[in-house]
């Protein structure tokens, strides 16, 4: 049984369509990323999976139950953890107090000192939350997401607002949780985050999924053309190279090819024969960002924000 199963999910707010015909599955133990521009429907999808928002149509299961079924929501929420897009913590509590309070909501929580250690706030454990830096507060938010020892962790843009070291620490924490068997579903618009964390990724564009796969194969990037770059040796013209090339920036040239083994062989053989260096020689496959931009170019004006959720 997958941890998350979504079939033909649709969500509309009046005449505005937030999610149209979205289907995907997240297997247990997997790190699954939902990638897309702002307003693509990522947060709406996740909130439906958490049981926070109702869907208009389609079939959804989270850990084997319908998250919209109020009868099993209490059970479900003891098994999921949620890190929201925005920080939401009482400013007058200390780190230890808020973690202790939330730990009491779960049947098998992680020990509070362990979580404090995991999120790197041991030195600030007894400080009031309002005195923490923005990055530290974000890490506390992650701590609140994992305090219940969840089987399934939802992370809604978990590293937004963190400095580079904070991002790395959060990635490391997510790696450790995944290695311990926690299923992770994250939304993000950072390509490097997807490449560093995700086993699989789906791109949400125009309220529907337009591509899905591993980060290395998304959009056929493992099969597509590569670019070979190097600095043009002194006294050599582009035309005199043994393979077709085009001038690039900084005195470099670029060779675009689907047959990189043959081209490299010809090029390096030619360079060795002439005693020429190929300074900065590199082989670049189409980046995830290139694929993403190709899929989502022009999106951004059709953002649909969900209304608030009632009793």
């Amino acid at each position: 049984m997958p941890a998350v199963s979504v079939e033909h999910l649709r969500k509309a707010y009046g005449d505005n369509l937030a999610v149209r015909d979205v289907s995907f599955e997240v297997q247990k133990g997997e790190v699954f990323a939902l990638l897309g521009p702002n307003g693509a429907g990522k947060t709406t999808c996740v909130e439906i999976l958490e049981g926070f928002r109702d869907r208009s149509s389609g079939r959804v299961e989270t850990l084997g139950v319908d998250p919209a079924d109020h009868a099993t929501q209490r059970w479900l929420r003891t098994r999921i953890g949620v890190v929201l897009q925005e920080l939401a913590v009482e400013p007058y509590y200390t780190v230890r107090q808020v973690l202790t309070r939330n730990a009491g909501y779960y049947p098998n929580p992680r020990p509070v000192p362990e979580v404090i250690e995991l999120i790197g706030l041991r030195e600030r454990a007894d400080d009031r939350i309002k005195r923490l830096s923005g990055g530290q507060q974000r890490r506390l938010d992650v701590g609140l997401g994992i305090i219940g020892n969840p089987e399934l962790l939802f992370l809604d843009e978990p590293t937004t607002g963190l400095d580079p070291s904070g991002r790395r620490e959060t990635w490391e924490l997510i790696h450790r949780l995944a290695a311990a068997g926690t299923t992770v579903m994250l939304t993000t618009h950072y390509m490097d985050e997807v490449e560093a964390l995700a086993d699989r990724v789906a791109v949400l564009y125009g309220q529907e999924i337009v591509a899905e796969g591993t980060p290395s194969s998304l959009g056929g990037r493992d099969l597509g053309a590569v670019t070979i770059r190097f600095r043009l040796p002194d006294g050599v013209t582009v035309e005199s190279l043994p393979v077709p090339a085009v001038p690039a920036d900084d005195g470099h040239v670029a060779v675009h090819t689907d047959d990189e083994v043959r081209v490299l062989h010809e090029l390096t053989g030619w360079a060795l024969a002439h005693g020429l260096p190929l300074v900065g020689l590199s082989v670049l496959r189409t980046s995830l960002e290139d694929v993403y931009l190709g899929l989502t170019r022009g999106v951004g004006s059709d953002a649909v924000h969900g209304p608030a959720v009632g009793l």
Partner: protein
Amino acid sequence: MTAATTPSGADVPVRGSFRGVSDLPLVGRQVYFEQLTFWLNPIGAAITIGFSVVFIVIFESTSRHSTVGYLAHIDLGQYYLPAFAAYGVMAACFNILAIQLVNRREMGLLKRQRLSPLPTWMLLSAVFLSTAIIATIQIVLVILVGRLGYDVHGPQDIGTFVLVLVVGMLSFTALGVAVSTLVPNADSAGPIVSLVFFILIALSGLYFPVKAGSGLATFTDVFPIRHLIVASVDSFNGIPGTSPWNDLLVMAIWGVAGVFVALRRWEWSPKRG
């Protein structure tokens, strides 16, 4: 909270959000954290609690030897004490609760709690019980100050006095929740709620007795504030020929209206954006 398992050991979803008596300690625990939230902001707590005490001291000190003719010639001090006990209820259950709920919603705290395993009924019960505790502290302090410092006697009809305050707590709590759903953002919560509240309590006879049948009384009789003040004063002093039932009925009607609005308009996520 426990998980059921099949004979093979697989988890089976437990249905329902109420687990019976085993939930009571969790409610108590949440009340503790609600109280902690209140007292961890000592300046806010002191102002909230101290407001009614400061007011009762001022009004009791300046009202000595004055009587209210149309209320069986009771001392004005005998009027102010139950009136400010009623104020304590209204301040805690309406004014403070409404502002607090708006702030919680706009800070995303309600959303986070909605996504935790804490059931809605448990969260709201704890919030309401914590609010009732704050109101009770104010009532007790006001009565202690009045009795020990200003020789005020009462309550004469303690059963009715307690009933009136309890119905007042329920009614104004419902109205506090309802009003919180009408306030669009945290910045306007304090000004909007407090402006309406302080104008109405002034017109309804908190600072000066308003004779029944007067134009002002006829106008403020529409609202529940005057009814809580009047029923509190009457029962505290055991004024002959008075009955709390009409006042209780009006408060109950307003309370039901508050519940209706709250259920229709309640939101867990911030209204901003």
